[in-house]
């Protein structure tokens, strides 16, 4: 139930974000979800794409530092309190969230939340046991 995420190191320099995204466009890779963590000196671009290995290869060829790791994706109802419930479950299970980002799904009135935690397996179990929808990689790519 884990989803591959790719992260890219970006120096805070004009045009670097565009160059990374453009590399993916040229490799005909669609982006399902994206987030950027930024500091005053550098940024980390995180992406969920249908073909992570292909994306990694294309980016590395263009000179980017890329890393793959697993995240989990859950579906929460698109209404107040939706995310809060899911986070409470993780909190109760003593699972730390390193970061998360969300996007709203077009058709079903659900929001998708991508969560990065050190204890991915435990998080998946806790969420599932409490009835939260954990999405598979396939489901995310086909959104």
């Amino acid at each position: 139930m884990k989803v591959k995420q790719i992260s890219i190191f970006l120096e805070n320099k004009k045009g670097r974000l565009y160059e990374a995204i453009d590399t993916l466009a040229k490799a005909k890779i669609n982006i399902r979800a994206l987030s950027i963590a930024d500091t005053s000196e550098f940024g980390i671009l995180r992406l969920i794409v249908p073909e992570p290995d292909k994306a990694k290869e294309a980016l590395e060829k263009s000179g980017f530092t890329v890393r793959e790791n697993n995240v989990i994706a859950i579906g929460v109802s698109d209404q107040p309190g939706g995310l809060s419930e899911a986070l409470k479950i993780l909190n109760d299970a003593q699972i730390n969230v390193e970061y998360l980002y969300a996007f709203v799904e077009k058709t079903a009135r659900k929001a998708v939340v991508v969560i990065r935690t050190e204890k991915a397996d435990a998080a998946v179990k806790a969420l599932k046991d409490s009835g939260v929808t954990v999405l598979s990689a396939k489901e995310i790519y086909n959104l």
Partner: protein
Amino acid sequence: MPVRERERLQLERLRRAVKTAYDNVPFFRKKFTEAKLGPEDIRTLKDITRIPFTTKADLREGYPFGMFAVPRREIVEVHTSSGTTGKPVVTGYTRGDIDLWSEVMARCLTMAGATEEDTIQNCYGYGMFTGGMGVHYGAQRIGATVVPISAGNTKRQLEIMLDFGTTVITCTPSYALYLAEVAEEEGISTKKIKLKAGCFGAEMWSERIREQIEKRFNILALNIYGLTEIIGPGVAHECPEKTGIHIFEDHFYAEVISPETLEPLPEGEQGELVLTTLTREATPMLRFRTRDVTALRREVCKCGRTLVKMERIKGRTDDMLKIRGVMVFPYKIEKALLEIKGIEPHYQIIVTRPQQLDEIEVQVEMSREVFSDEVRRIEELKKNIEKHIERSVGIRVRVTLVEPKTLPRSEGKAKRVIDKREL
């Protein structure tokens, strides 16, 4: 050679060199006169300390041919230093000097294990720079096949290396690393390259860089030392013991002085290397201040040579940065940096003075090995590098992580320090 015999030979040659310089180069005659010294006052080797120093600035003043000790018709070749900091320094060679150069360079290549069976790819620049021709003459003297490819065109370098079965390479250490990097990018397995040894010099490098070059190419990487003002490459070379660089003291007399008091330092102490040529004809040099920081050790080497050994160059007295009053040698920052796992040996040091205080920024390239998707971890990495540098160098620096392959790679001397202070 027994000590006594060597010293007798050195003294005999020194006296001749002093007399030649005094008789034929007005600059030296003037210096001697000012110091109330005559060539006959040099009676023992110790008397060399009475001779005034020669600096790069002195040589520039003599530009172009003021330092020549022989008539122009006897000069068969000239070379210059790069001249990046002013007028270049010109050095001339008589036929005898070329013969000497071939001899000392042949010794260097031999130390690296080269014989007439070898193919030497000479990536030092041919032209006014002494590197190319120096290696060339040495290779010819031992009868090896020399590939005079000069610097640049890296893909072609690799192609030739594969096709010609190059066994010995001569280039700057940073260029060797760059070659390895390009080989990797091009999918060329270094196993297919037949290299067995390399003579690397013309810039400062560290043991860590040696390890990297040796590992990546599976070769023996040795230090070669020389400078235009003396003869070019071929002043000293390291033997496979890797415990110091043997100076060919039958032709070059070495001293180490304190860059502050200018007094000679005892054996083993770090200071500035001062060289005197004993057998050069066209441009004899007396007590030239090289600005290179090293220490001398006189011990019989495991290789059997009795020649004095100098340490790997530890810095330049003119590159020495004074940061908030503390003397800092850039190589120390490099050394600290390379002790951190996963960090590539590509970096740049930028010194600024935004207000009253000096600040050092060390730009380090991010590598796949240490990159993380979490900001916290990257910040930790930065802090670790900063702490490690502070612990080993004694100054606080700010580390900036930059994208891989964005710091300048050089095909000649790598520019590691950018001083933006207006002092």
